[in-house]
Structure formats: C-alpha cells, structure tokens
C-alpha cells in the first residue's frame, strides 16, 4: 500500500485552506451576507458533515471556516473557558487546516468562536464573534412544526413567546428563563441568542459582527454591529441581566459572570469567573479574590 501523504506538511497541504471546499464556502458566505442584510432571520444553508459530531459546534466551525483569512488570529471559548475539550479541539482543528495563529486573549483575537458565552471584555469593530447554536428556532419548544414557526416569523406572530414568559411569572413569580433568553432584533425578528446566560444579553448590542451557525439544524443568522437587540419582557416585569450574587473567589471581580464549582463532598462551593481570560488578566494585574492567592505564589 502506498501512502500519498508522507510528511506532516504534505498532509496539511492535502486540505483546502480552512478545511471546506470553495464551493461550500461560497454557499455559506452567501448565507452569511443574507443573514447580515436581514438581522435575526434564520437563513437555511446546506450544512456539511464535519469531522466532529453534531453538538460539538459544527455550525460555528463551518461559519468560522467560511470567514477565516490566513492573517486572522482565532480564539475559541467553551462556556467562557479557553482550555476545555471543545475549545481546544476546535482551535487545533483550525491550526491544522488553516495554519492560522491562535490566542487565548480576547483583545488579540480577530475571530472568536464561542459556545454559550460572550467574552467579558468589550469587543471592537474589527472583531467577529461566531456562536455555536444548538437550536436556532426560539419558538421550537412552543411550536414543533417548522412550517408553522416559519409562518409565525413571516407574520411577526410572537404572542406565544410572551405567553411562555407570562407562564414563567405566574408559576415562579419572575421570568425564570436564565439562558437562551429570547431577543427581538431591530424590532422585527425574535431570535434565539444561543444558550448564553441572560447576563450576556445586553452585550449583544456591540461593535463587532455577530454570526450564528447551527450545523445540525442547518441555519445561519447574524447581527451587524450597532444593531438594536432587545430582550423580551413586560412593563411590570422588566428584563434583568442576573448573575450569582457573589464576587469571583480567584480574582475578586464582581462584574463578571460566575461559575459555581463544588469543591468537595461536604458542599463547599467556590465562585469563579466563567471567562478564563478575563480572570487570568485580572489576577495578572494583581487582583486577588477571597480564596485566591497572588499570581506569583501560585506558580509552581
């Protein structure tokens, strides 16, 4: 048996830049442009099989592959963290197939692919934020038929969503939806912001371009910079961007979204920043939380 690609370089050259073939990239790029022209509207696209399972961010990966240039610097986060399996493997995937630079620093990245968080640091005009989306249709759990939900979007018939939020209030006394909190974009389309915590919803009116890719569901949507994104609510129950009422135990930040970590089987808990880059940068700058130790001493 002969091996076609014998060296690592030859193996890498066997891929087209950023893995996907050009015809596929053009199809995805056209969908992205229509998505930007109709903010919040889900554009159908012919999602491809990727060398990773559905649910691992195949939609986001395809969108990233279609927008990446060789001079880009890519950051990938999973629930805010750069060092989790999903983030590490997607970063390595693009290092190998696109040969691009990668970073863990939000400010140094030109393209950021994210699963379920928006970085704490404000994004700037040159940056692109790519979301991995599991269920793009905000009305799906209220109306299982795609034919019906498409009709509802075309007629701007979003009463059902308000009924759902109202039922939250009648049952729990407040809107209990804590993540994937529905938003209305430019007073037209109700959109699923992907399962980001509602703490992140106000950040969606940003300077960067936001692209959303749902691989299994074959949808792409987008929000241009400086676009109005309003979280749905009621006059007497206004939207509230909530987080754990605590400061980060490592860096002391009281303005960041926190993960609750169980430390032992006696119920000891610790709250830490979900955004690892934000936490590390603060600790580097000398901030110390209640259970943290100064950065210099923590280096073994």
């Amino acid at each position, binding site marked *: 048996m002969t091996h076609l690609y014998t060296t690592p370089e030859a193996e890498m050259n066997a891929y087209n*830049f950023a893995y996907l073939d050009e015809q596929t990239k053009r199809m995805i790029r056209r969908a992205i442009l229509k998505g930007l022209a109709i903010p919040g509207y889900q554009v159908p696209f012919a999602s491809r099989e990727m060398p990773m399972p559905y649910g691992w961010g195949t939609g986001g990966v395809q969108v990233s592959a279609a927008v990446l*240039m060789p001079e880009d610097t890519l950051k990938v986060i999973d629930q805010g963290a750069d060092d989790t399996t999903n983030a590490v493997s997607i970063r390595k995937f693009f290092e190998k197939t696109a040969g691009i630079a990668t970073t863990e620093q939000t400010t140094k990245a030109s393209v950021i692919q994210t699963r379920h968080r928006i970085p704490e640091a404000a994004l700037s005009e040159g940056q692109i934020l790519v979301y991995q989306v599991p269920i793009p249709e905000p009305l799906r759990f209220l109306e299982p038929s795609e034919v019906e939900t498409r009709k509802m979007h075309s007629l701007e018939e979003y009463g059902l969503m308000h009924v759902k939020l109202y039922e939250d209030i009648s049952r729990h006394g407040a809107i209990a939806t804590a993540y994937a909190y529905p938003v209305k974009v*430019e007073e037209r389309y109700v959109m699923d912001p992907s399962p980001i915590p509602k703490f992140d919803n106000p950040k969606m009116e940003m300077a960067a371009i936001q692209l959303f890719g749902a691989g299994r569901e074959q949808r792409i949507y987008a929000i241009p910079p400086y676009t109005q994104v309003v979280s749905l609510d009621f006059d007497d129950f206004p939207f509230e961007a909530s987080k754990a009422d605590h400061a980060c135990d490592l860096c002391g930040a009281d303005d960041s979204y926190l993960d609750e970590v169980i430390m032992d089987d006696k119920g000891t808990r610790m709250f830490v920043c979900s955004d690892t880059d934000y936490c590390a940068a603060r600790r580097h700058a000398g901030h110390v939380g209640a259970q943290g130790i100064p950065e210099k001493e923590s280096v073994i």
Partner: protein
Amino acid sequence: MDTDVLKGGFSNAPVQSAQAFRAIMTLLARPGEILGVQGAMPPAPLSVAAGVTLITLCDPETPLFLAGAWDCPEVRKWIAFHIGAPIVPRAQAHFAVGSWKDFGPVTDFAIGTPQYPDRSATLIVELETLSTDGPALRGPGIKTHTTLSLPDVETFQANATLFPLGLDFLFTSGTSIAGLPRTTKVEAT
C-alpha cells in the same frame, strides 16, 4: 482560440476569496464604508471590484443577470470559464451586475418572500466614482450615521420600506467597493 478569457481569475483562490469575502461582509455589515479589493482582472466593462465580487460569491448555483453593456461576449465567456454562473433574465437572477442606468427600474428583481426573505437578488452596481460624498445613511451596522455617493435616493428609500423583503446592493468602482443592505435608511438630501 481566444486565450484571454482564461486569464484574470484568482491565482490563489482559497486565500484571495477569503480576503475578498471579509471585505464584502464588512461592507454589508457596516454600510457607508468603502474598501479596496483585488486579485481578479476581468474584461471591460467589468471593474476589478465587480470581478472579484463575482468570483468570490457566484458559481454554477447562482443565476446571474448582466445589464446593458455588461452583457457582451467577453464578459459572458469570462464568467463561463471562471465562475460558471448561468446567465438569466432579471426576474430569475440571484446576482446582477451593470451600471445604474442599465439596470433601469429595479422593481422586477426578486425581493424574497415573506417566509423566505433571503431569496432575494443582490445587485452589483458599477459606478464611475465611489466616495463618501452623498446622502446620510442610518440603520443596523451604523453607529450614528455614514454617507455614501449613491446613484439614486428614492429607489433605496423605497427598497428599505420593503423590509424584511428587499434587494441588497454592492457598489463597485475600479478596485473600490461599498455595500447597502435593505436595512439601511437613506435620508433625503
């Protein structure tokens, strides 16, 4: 055999189309900005920017309309070799290219359907010059306002009222390119 038609495509398609797409995406996300693109050398009257846009976005899956002087054998042959897009009448086109005068009234291009507003045409309008000297633009992608030298005002105002339906525009001149999606509101001068 006429070999000129074989020339003028991208020399490194994956990289050049990625760079061109980034420019086009930025322009449709930030109406009023003007960027330069390069890499394609299409036959006249196609501008470099229009040629780059066609090679980057079009392929055999995108029916294309050529308006007026742009519908000439040289352009048709170049598109057939480098892009392979079928040339169709305007009502069936996903993309169209030509001068504003040659387009005439743009009312018979596809503007999408209420359930599929994305099934609408993108018009590449070739202009003599492209500058930020023109009517004020407001809308998604624009922080306060921008300005752009548009060939017309009423047409784009009427197009914006169709939202979420409507046409999307790219303006090209030489190597310069700008964008105007249907969401942008053009103010009267």
